[in-house]
């Protein structure tokens, strides 16, 4: 079974689910509403805290 798995060639096919016109319109409205807002303030602060004395590896 394992050998068979090894010999199998995995092919990935990406299928993008396209937006309808109505969805595009709805998203455009949402984008306008959230424009200029800081959406993940707490998360940003948390990241800042985690990284405050950390040296990046590269």
């Amino acid at each position, binding site marked *: 079974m394992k050998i068979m798995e090894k010999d199998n060639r995995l092919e*990935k096919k990406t299928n993008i*689910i396209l937006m309808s016109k109505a969805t595009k319109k709805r*998203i455009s409205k949402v984008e306008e509403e959230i*424009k200029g807002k800081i959406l*993940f303030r707490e*998360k940003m602060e*948390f990241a800042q805290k985690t990284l405050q004395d950390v040296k*990046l590896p590269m």
Partner: protein
Amino acid sequence: MQKKVLTNINLYETSLSIENSIIRYTFESTGKSKLIKAVEYSRLKTKSGDTIYNLGFGDYNSEDKTISDKENSNNGDMRKVFNTVLSTVPEFFKVFPYFPIFIQGSDSHALFEQECRNSCLKKCQKICKNKNRRIRTYGHFLNKNFKEFSKNYIFFGFNEEEKKFVSYEVKNKYSAILIYKKK
């Protein structure tokens, strides 16, 4: 003889918007209900002057007209949503190939467990099952595809005890992940 194994990766189309130092991908999840979701990369300067981009992801809240990463919508299309979030990584690196992406779950902070126990119905005993759940999901997917992803990216995991980034190793647990694009 090799046998082809075809895997379909289904993901939602996204809408890109760039605003100052923020890159945002918005899409609609069409699971049990229709929900607008957004993936955001926000620039962050560390104390030592390094620039990273923090990955944020959440659902649109029509009441306060913002995106929240607090809820788990359980919309029945987790795989599609997760594939969509991950599909923005190469897109991000097309715009900013030299900056790393920092991923950390909002459920990984020190006070999360206490907050969770106050309202959670799971009645967990010693370990809060919801703590670090988000980063575990990212880690799980990365572990499954590590070999393939490593062709284009370099991964580091954040070691919480030592407070430092270490080379990512599959099956080890980390509280945050840092991704660089290979040059």
